[in-house]
């Protein structure tokens, strides 16, 4: 039987695929242990506590300086967005009196499946 020609780049691509599959498998196996889930969730809880602590500290600091917090800015942003949406809605109804959105006539709803599609065999 004829040997396939030696292809160093092909070998490298095979190795890359094997590395990807192997690492994915190893990682999935590791992540699925109770211990790794516990460690990951502990790290997340720690990070959240840190984030919460920082947010509260910054809020006190900004309040003392008479500056808005991130929550204040987000709240103003939300109110602005709500106002913009209202203006857009009013603008649409003012610019366009009630009319169907599609100006072109729609095709008739009379299509029937081709005879070869009427059997129960799907694929």
């Amino acid at each position: 039987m004829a040997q396939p020609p030696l292809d160093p780049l092909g070998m490298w691509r095979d190795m890359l695929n094997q590395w990807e599959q192997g690492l994915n498998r190893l990682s999935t196996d590791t992540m699925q242990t109770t211990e790794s889930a516990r460690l990951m969730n502990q790290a997340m809880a720690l990070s959240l506590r840190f984030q919460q602590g920082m947010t509260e500290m910054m809020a006190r600091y900004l309040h003392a300086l008479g500056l808005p917090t991130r929550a204040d800015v987000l709240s103003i942003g939300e109110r602005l967005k709500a106002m913009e949406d209202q203006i857009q809605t009013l603008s649409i109804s003012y610019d366009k009196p009630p009319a169907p959105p599609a100006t072109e006539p729609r095709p008739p709803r009379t299509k029937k499946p081709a005879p070869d599609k009427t059997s129960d065999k799907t694929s």
Partner: protein
Amino acid sequence: MSETGLGLDPVAMTERLQEEVQRTIQRAAKGLSYMASPAPTMGRTPKDLLAARGPMRLYHYRPLAPEIYRVPVLLVMATTNRGYILDLAPGQSFVEFMLKCGFDLYLLDWEAPAPHERGLRMDDYVADFIPDAMRRVLADSGEPDVSLLGYCAGGMLSVMFAGSHPEAPLKNLVCFTTPVDFRHLSLFHRMTDQKSFDVDGLVDTLGNIPPELITLSFDMLRPATRVAGQVKLWDNMWNDDFVQSYRMFDRWATDSLPLAGEYFRQTVKELFWNNSFLKGELVLAGRKVDPGRITAPFLHVSAEHDHIVPREASEPLLKMVGSQEKEEIVLKGGHVSLVAGPNAAKRMWPALDAWLSRRST
């Protein structure tokens, strides 16, 4: 043809070397234009926005066939990802395929919930957004019934809707890779382990769950794939088709949506901790979710190599649904390649057309 003592063919080796030199030159030239070019535009099939409310967006695609089937089809997208995966590019678009087959398509897509919408729950999606979209589709099309077609979590919400609204004018129900047994989403199940995962702390601190966390959790299912993907991209930089396809899928995969905080809390507690959808114990907006009450013809399409929703997680769905006329198709491919890309165009799209067309008159 002479060969060396090592079994090497000098002519073939020379040709291979020349080809590789050419590709290296092309990689350098195209690599530069890749860096400078903008991300590909997707979701270009013409459509009209029918409704926008909270995170809900309802679109109607303009028909591409001179004659269409009577029954309109409402696509329900997953809440974590953008709907343009179903409309990648002309010639590679599921939406375009369906329109050309003669279906009248509507899309229920989602935008990021705003910070003040952190209180949205599954109840809102199942008992408000989906029925509202259905009513609008019926009004827009002038038809008395509609087919629902949901992808992944969109399929799950569609089954929850159909199972809690048996009176809804549902002509057909189609689901792609729809999870129902959450024990088998093993990595997600482990990551949200009730003993160590503080979902209340997470939601109370963050409000909505940021998209980076969603993308990271999907990446953790295959952590080496992103790095290997970059290497493969460079290796195939000379191949325009590969680069275009890579960019489209990569953009979609990293373009996750945040999840409303309460929706996430409910998903973890009801589905991952209690598995209440599978147990038949799920109640949304005061209505029991019982897929056994679904009577519309039902099709579930799943993928053999789905790493996000493995077969075991979606397999019980067919038994749970009460329809007399029900079917499951298992196709080769993965979670995304089932619906998008060349394999989907060859396998799933024609299979769906064959099933749905004869039930859409």
